[in-house]
């Protein structure tokens, strides 16, 4: 308090007690200025204006009692030190209060002037100390992130150098290489790639920890992602003579996910599965719906490997954890993969877990939220609580003209999507969120409440507007087509059922056109 005028906020409903406290404070330190409220709500309301240096709080107020009282004060003013002045000597409550962030718990009958003054002074000091600790913790976290980001950048340059020159040797660009030499070079390349993956994980994990991973969810066919991941991992599985199988029901609805990130999770789990499965075993990737949890798709990666002990299961998704009993001929890695997978699944609103029996394989499962087409479609395909008479699905395909186009094409597609949204009637038509794409081709779908004849007008508008996009002009081509959506027979069925059925029909059409 540094001898300056101290502002004390006293929240106390008993006028006698309030006067006594005021008297004691003035006796101890004449520079003190006290404002007193007898209701908690009034006291809290005054905080913003008065910004007190300390709050003295009774726990038995007309509008709030007990632990709830200090909980509300701490919530409202987390930075102001709070000292409780209670009529009861309740040690359990006192400890609870301190744990939640209260600075001191004094019993009214036992306070002297100098004792109260000192308690307040120490409360202020302790609070300041805590705050500076918190600040430096944050600074250290920030420093660690910056450091990791810097390190992973700096590691990449020599890594690139090794990768480049080894691949030059491997590809025979610097003279002929014997079969044995090629084998050795291949081993180096493999190790370099492992190192590269570790450097990436290091940065990714530190980002996950500080909540800096971004995801861009779309409407995704999770079966496609699974097949893609399995194709990418097939070679690694073959090399180890581990079977890699897919079991995906074609009727699996779309999920709401970032395709790149979901693929990352899948690859991580499949990679682990292959790693811990002995030759002759198998890794199976499945996706299914679970009746008790209808809003999610369940994806699982099962292996026939060594299994995971119960102790390890509890810790396996923690950062840096590695199962000490895991039998593995390969190097161990950083122990970040499952931690990153957990964070990524969490960002999607799903959860991840493992079931395993030691010696009997493990099954890692995660959930992804369903993309509810019915919810999206309902407002545009119904009118005055009835299904509309005609619905058309319009398909707009943007196709790059050359085979290899990278991300500037993505920007063009995004721009086209924005234009497309301006080509439709918001209350009658719906531009579906972008689908996962195969290669660079981008397909946008519009559900339009109109018949095929009138849909032609919309299609003309789309062709005209998108035809003007300069980037598309030179580098891509545009294809617009339409087909009618088969509508259910409404007789005797609720609107909800009909909407569900239309959503089902549209989903089927999407599967067949994308």
């Amino acid at each position, binding site marked *: 308090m540094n001898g300056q005028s101290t502002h004390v906020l006293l929240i106390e409903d008993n006028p006698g007690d309030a006067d006594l406290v005021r008297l004691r404070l003035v006796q101890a330190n004449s520079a003190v200025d006290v404002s007193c409220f007898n209701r908690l709500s009034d006291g809290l309301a005054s905080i913003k204006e008065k910004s007190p240096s300390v709050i003295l709080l009774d726990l038995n107020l007309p509008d709030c009692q007990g632990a709830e009282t200090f909980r509300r004060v701490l919530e409202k003013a987390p930075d102001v030190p709070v000292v409780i002045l209670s009529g009861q000597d309740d040690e359990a409550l006192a400890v609870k209060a301190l744990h939640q962030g209260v600075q001191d718990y004094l019993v009214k009958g036992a306070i002297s002037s100098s004792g109260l003054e000192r308690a307040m002074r120490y409360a202020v000091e302790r609070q300041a100390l805590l705050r500076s600790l918190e600040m430096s913790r944050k600074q250290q976290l920030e420093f660690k992130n910056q450091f990791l980001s810097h390190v992973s950048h700096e590691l*990449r340059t020599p890594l690139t150098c090794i990768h*480049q*020159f080894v691949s030059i040797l491997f590809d025979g660009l610097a003279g002929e290489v014997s079969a044995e030499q090629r084998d050795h070079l291949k081993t180096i390349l493999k190790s370099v790639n492992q190192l590269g993956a570790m450097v990436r994980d290091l940065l990714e994990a530190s980002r996950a920890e500080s909540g800096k991973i971004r995801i861009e969810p779309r409407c995704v066919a999770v079966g496609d992602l699974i097949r893609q991941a399995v194709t990418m991992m097939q070679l690694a599985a073959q090399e180890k003579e581990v079977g890699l199988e897919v079991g995906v029901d074609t009727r699996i609805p779309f999920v709401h996910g970032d395709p790149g990130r979901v693929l990352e999770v899948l690859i991580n789990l499949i990679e682990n599965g292959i790693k811990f499965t002995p030759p002759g075993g198998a890794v199976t990737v499945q996706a299914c719906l679970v009746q008790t949890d209808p809003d999610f798709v369940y994806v699982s990666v099962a292996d026939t490997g060594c299994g995971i002990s119960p102790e390890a299961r509890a810790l396996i998704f923690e950062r840096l954890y590695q199962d000490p009993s895991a039998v593995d001929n390969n190097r161990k890695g950083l122990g970040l993969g499952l931690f990153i997978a957990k964070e990524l699944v969490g960002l999607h609103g799903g959860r991840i877990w493992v079931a395993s029996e030691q010696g009997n394989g493990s099954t890692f499962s995660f959930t992804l939220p369903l993309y509810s087409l019915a919810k999206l479609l309902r407002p545009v395909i119904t009118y005055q609580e009835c299904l509309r008479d005609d619905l058309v699905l319009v398909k707009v395909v943007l196709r790059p003209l050359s085979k*290899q186009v990278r991300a500037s094409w993505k920007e063009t597609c995004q721009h086209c999507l924005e234009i497309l949204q301006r080509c439709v009637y918001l209350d009658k038509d719906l531009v579906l969120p972008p689908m996962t794409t195969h290669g660079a081709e981008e397909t946008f779908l519009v559900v339009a409440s109109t018949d095929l004849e009138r849909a032609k007008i919309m299609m003309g508008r789309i062709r005209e507007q998108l035809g003007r996009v300069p980037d598309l002009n030179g580098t891509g081509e545009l294809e617009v087509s339409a087909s009618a959506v088969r509508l259910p027979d409404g007789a005797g069925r609720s609107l909800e059922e009909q909407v569900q059925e239309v959503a089902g029909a549209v989903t089927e059409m999407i599967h067949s056109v994308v």
Partner: protein
Amino acid sequence: MKSHADTLCVNFALENDKMANSKIMIVDDDPDLRQALRLRLRANKYETVNAVDGYSAIAMAYKERPDLIILDLGLPAGDGFVVLDRLQKDDKLSAIPVIVLTARDPQANERRVLRAGAAAFFQKPADNAELLDVIRASLNRAGTGTVLPS
């Protein structure tokens, strides 16, 4: 482009031949990486020229008029973004496709680089086959305005 299939094939071959002599400028401050990239590109029948910093990149682009530029981001004397900006603002150089090849993080840089006018973003170490594919596609698009039949 003519529609007859045979003509397409002939065009395709001609295109390839012409591309084979394309000149690529490598902008990187690390001499070893420049050398590695030069070896790789020469093996694919590209001519190469080098620049070691942002300033000489612009000067060299003027002098050599490369068909494509491979650009690092962390450079002395004007980083990759400065180079991109100056290339874009120069009528004589703005048509040259630029492929950014950097150790920097894609999450923080990819979008920014593409907005600044680059044709593609690769993080080091990049996959050689993929990089060569994108070089080929970018040269194709920029070169004569004709497009590879796929």
